[in-house]
């Protein structure tokens, strides 16, 4: 028996080894490299200067009001998008959860289809609707409501709209999963005991479905704060977010160390934010 258990303890690492080795080389090491590169001077034509020259200049530069502004704007946009997704997605989850079983699976299918559809395709669908030569302008010009096409795209509004369009299904899925498990007769019981609807919702339903809301907030906020595709396509270079800024450092600006410092700042913000958020959400079922 002792021989057997010794054998077992050796087999665990053996099963895990391929993935562990792979992720250490192609995930952990690259992240360590980002940290190292963020502390050395850039090369003249891109890359890094060799031999390496240590510097903290890129971290100091992050505190330039220009970059602080872009960070704050990204957070503001991400909070707005998350808020809209949660506040409209939750009632949708309730609506689907209350529907008869057969209708319910069809409705969930309608949420799943965008979820599984290529993100670029969906961003494009929104773009062609808002573009100067696109659907909305075509309609308004056609019925004679306007004479000149409106500029609906390439502004902060179109970016926010595109992000909500892109991430709303990510918010609905986890919230629906929680709402579906929630026993709606509890609301009736609360109302029998004299609680009004708002009170019953805040005291009973919201706390019990909070795990779904917490998951929805993380699933929307994290990708949106570092988004690149939507601000790039729906913003047309006029709406700068952290993602487009980082991308530029590795493209035209050819400033890898500064891009690395920015990436680490973004990662730190997201990881610390998520940990802090989970702690607060755990601490009691206090509403958001």
């Amino acid at each position, binding site marked *: 028996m002792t021989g057997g258990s010794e054998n077992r303890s050796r087999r665990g690492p053996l099963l*895990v080894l391929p993935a562990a080795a792979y992720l250490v080389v192609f995930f952990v090491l690259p992240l360590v490299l980002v940290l190292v590169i963020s502390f050395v001077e850039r090369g003249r034509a891109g890359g890094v200067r060799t031999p390496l020259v240590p510097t903290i200049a890129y971290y100091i530069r992050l505190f330039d009001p220009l970059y602080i502004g872009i960070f704050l704007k990204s957070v503001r946009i991400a909070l707005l998008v998350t808020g809209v997704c949660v506040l409209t997605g939750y009632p949708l989850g309730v609506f689907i959860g209350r529907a008869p079983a057969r209708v319910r699976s069809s409705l969930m299918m309608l949420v799943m289809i965008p979820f599984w559809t290529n993100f670029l*395709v969906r961003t494009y669908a929104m773009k062609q609707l808002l573009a100067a030569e696109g659907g909305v302008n075509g309609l308004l010009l056609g019925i004679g409501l306007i004479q000149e096409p409106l500029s609906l795209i390439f502004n902060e509004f179109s970016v926010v709209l595109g992000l909500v*369009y892109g991430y709303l299904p990510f918010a609905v899925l986890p919230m629906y999963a929680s709402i579906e498990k929630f026993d709606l007769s509890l609301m009736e019981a609360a109302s029998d005991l004299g609680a009004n609807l708002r009170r019953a919702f805040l005291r009973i339903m919201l706390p019990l479905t909070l795990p779904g809301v917490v998951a929805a907030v993380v699933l929307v906020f994290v990708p949106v704060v570092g988004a690149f595709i939507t601000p790039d396509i729906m913003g047309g270079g006029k709406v700068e977010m952290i993602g487009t800024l980082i991308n530029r450092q590795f493209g035209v600006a050819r400033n890898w160390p500064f891009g690395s410092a920015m990436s680490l700042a973004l*990662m730190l913000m997201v990881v610390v934010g998520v940990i802090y958020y989970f702690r607060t959400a755990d601490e009691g079922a206090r509403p958001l």
Partner: protein
Amino acid sequence: MRNSARAPSTGLALRLGKAGLAVNALGIFAFLYVPILILIVFSFNDTRTVARMTGLSLQWYEKLFVNRDLLAAARNSLIIALTSTLVATVMGTLTALGMDRFHFRLRKTFDTVLYLPIVIPEIVMGISLLLFFNLAFFPVIQLISGASLSLGLWTILIGHIAFNIPFVYVIVRARLVGFDRTLEEAARDLGADEWRTFWRVTFPLLLPGILGGALMAFTLSLDDFLVTVFTAGTASPTMPLYIYSLVRRGVTPEINALSTVLLLASMGLIVLSLAAQRRE
């Protein structure tokens, strides 16, 4: 309803609430589907506009099937998605089994590492691989073997396997949580060796989880833009990179036709995933 006589205001609020829920749902489904429907409609337009329907035509679909760049991008995407799914599914499943059933040193640490790629922003993963290949991996290989390497399909593949392993792991591990291990013990008691027990008992029971993980990996890989764009180098784009280059240039009915085809393909995938779930 029972207490409507006692609290008429609650009854009214409830009815208003129900109407509000329905209106909200209708609004969201319209918001999600109107752009997609318009996209599909204009893919059949017979002129180069996506503002007015001028007539019906299939010309944009015909153009798709003779577009060499597009076909090459589709082939690249499929090769990378299939290969990365296969490798990540094997590694992710083995890892889930190892983490679920055995205790060993550094297990907790590795568990954290496995969740990190899911949590950190994708763009960070993309640029970290770009730095790694250019500043560490290629120079080291050159030092050892003299071969000078550059970014291409194989570096995209390496990146996709890296972000797919954690997703397969999480999905298979969730399946292992409710796993009834007495079934394995029964098989062993009946004389099956460990290998036979695995293939005849453990594997079939895990299969829906493994298929779910594989499907997730396949979709993520087909869809990925950010990790791909930083590991692709100059040649051989995948489908998302190709679409991106088109979409940046403007809106045309060709993109609408291509989008419609991709939309149908992803709906096919959903049907597949529902079929896989029904097996459970």
